[in-house]
C-alpha cells in the first residue's frame, strides 16, 4: 500500500492536518487489521462490530461509513490477506523458475506454510474462520485458492499426460492440501505447519505425477528438513 505524499516528510505528523483521504485509508487498514486479529482470536461468529471498532480505535460511524456490516469488512480484510499470501507464494514459485516443476511447486508450498506458520492470526482467519463467515466468504475462499491453479496446471504438461488427467485435478490437489492445513490450524498447530510440508508436497504432486514420483519428492523434502 502506497505511502501518503506530504510536502515535507521531515515534519512531525499531526493527524488533524493530514488530508482526509489519508485518515480514511488508514482507518480502513486499521479496521481490516482489527478484523483479522479479533476474528482469529474469538472466531468469526463471536466477533462483533463493537469489538472491531474498539480494537481499531475507530468510531462506529467510520465503520458504518466504510463497511456497513461485519461481513463486508471481513470479506475485504480476507481479500487483502489473501493478496499477500498469493504474492508471497508467486514470488517463491517464480524465484525457483530455473528448477523443474516439482521443485518449483515445493518452493511455493514452503513459502505458504512458512508465512502461515509465522502469522498465526492470518492463518486462522484465512484458513478456518473464512469457512464460517457465510456463503459469500466461502465462495471467495474457493475463488482465492483457484488463484494457485495456474501454478499447478503447469504440472499437466510436465507430467507428459495432460490429456489423460481428469479435469478436476487442480481442485483435487488444492482440496487435499488446504484440508490438511485447515486441520492443523484449527487444532492450534499452525505455528508448526512446516512439519506437514512433506505431506503437502505429496498431496499436490501425486495427482499429476503418480504415487512413486510424488513419494520421491516427499522423501527429498523430508531429508532436507
Amino acid at each position, binding site marked *: 500500500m502506497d505511502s501518503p505524499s506530504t510536502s515535507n516528510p521531515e515534519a512531525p505528523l499531526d493527524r488533524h492536518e493530514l488530508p482526509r483521504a489519508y485518515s480514511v485509508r488508514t482507518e480502513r487498514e486499521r479496521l481490516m487489521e482489527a478484523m483479522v486479529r479479533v476474528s482469529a482470536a474469538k472466531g468469526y*461468529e463471536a466477533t462483533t462490530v463493537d469489538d472491531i471498532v474498539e480494537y481499531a480505535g475507530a468510531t462506529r460511524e467510520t465503520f458504518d461509513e466504510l463497511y456497513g456490516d461485519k461481513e463486508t469488512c471481513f470479506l475485504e480484510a480476507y481479500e487483502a490477506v489473501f493478496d499477500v499470501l498469493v504474492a508471497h507464494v508467486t514470488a517463491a514459485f517464480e524465484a525457483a523458475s530455473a528448477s523443474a516443476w516439482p521443485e518449483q511447486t515445493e518452493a511455493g508450498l514452503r513459502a505458504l506454510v512458512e508465512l502461515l506458520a509465522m502469522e498465526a492470526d492470518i492463518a486462522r482467519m484465512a484458513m478456518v474462520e473464512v*469457512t*464460517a463467515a*457465510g*456463503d459469500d466468504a*466461502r*465462495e471467495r475462499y*474457493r475463488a482465492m485458492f483457484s488463484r494457485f491453479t495456474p501454478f499447478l496446471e503447469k504440472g499437466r504438461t510436465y507430467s507428459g*499426460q495432460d490429456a*489423460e488427467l*481428469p*479435469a*478436476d485435478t487442480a*481442485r*483435487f*490437489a*488444492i*482440496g*487435499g*492440501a*488446504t*484440508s*490438511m492445513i485447515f*486441520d492443523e490450524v*484449527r487444532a492450534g498447530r499452525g505455528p508448526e505447519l512446516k512439519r506437514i510440508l512433506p*505431506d503437502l508436497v*505429496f*498431496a499436490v504432486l*501425486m*495427482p499429476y505425477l*503418480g*504415487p*512413486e514420483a510424488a*513419494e520421491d519428492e*516427499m522423501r527429498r523434502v523430508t531429508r532436507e528438513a
Partner: protein
Amino acid sequence: MGRQAATNVRAGAEGTGSVREVQALSPSRKLELVNSSKREKILEGMLEAVGAEGYDATSVRTVLARTGLYRQAFYDHFADKEACYLAALEMGIGRLEATMARAAASEESWRGRLRAGLGALLDRLDAEPDFGRGVIVEVHAAGPQALARRAEALKRAADFIDLARLDAGESESPPQIAPEGIVAGIHAIVHSRLSTGATEGFRALLPEFMYFAVLPYFGADAAGAEMQAARA
C-alpha cells in the same frame, strides 16, 4: 465402515415393521413411535431448510414452517437450533453412510465396493442436492461440535479408502497421508459443486473420483483403466 454402517442403518430408523406389529404395542410405546417420527420429521426439515437457505438464515420458525409442526413439538425434542442441527447432521451423515454401505454390500473387491459406494453417494446428491448442501456445505457455519462430526466422518471415509493397502502390493504402498488426501480432494470437488448451487451432474464425477482414489495405491495405468471402466 461395515459395522458403523450397520449401526447407522438401525439409527436411521427408516420406517419398517407391519401395521399389526404397531397395533400390538403398548400406548406408551405408540406415543414413543409418534414422537420419534416427529423428531425425524424435524431433523429432515432442518437439513432441507439449512441446505436451501443456509445455516445462518435458518431459524426454528423456518424449520417448523417446512414440517407443519408446532413450536412445542420442536422444543420437546431440542433445546435450540444448534442442538437440532447437530442431531440432523448426525442423521444425515448416518444416512449417507448407510446408502453407501448398502450399495457396496454386494461387491467383493475394494474397487467394486468403492465404485458402488461413491456412485450411490453421487446419485443421492443428484436426487437431493439440498440435503447434500445441508450436510456437506453448511456444516462449516454450525460451530465446533458440527465440525468435529464432519472430521469423524471424513476419518471413517479415509479408513475405508485405506483398505486398498490390503489389495495393493507391499512395495506400492503409498505414504500414510494418502487416504486423507484422497478424501479431502474428492470432498473439495463435491463441496465446490454443491456450494455453487449445482443441482445435478454429480454422478458424472464418478470416473475421475475413481481415478483419484485408485492412483496412489495402484499407479497411473490402473487409475486410467478404472476411469475408462467407470465411464462406460
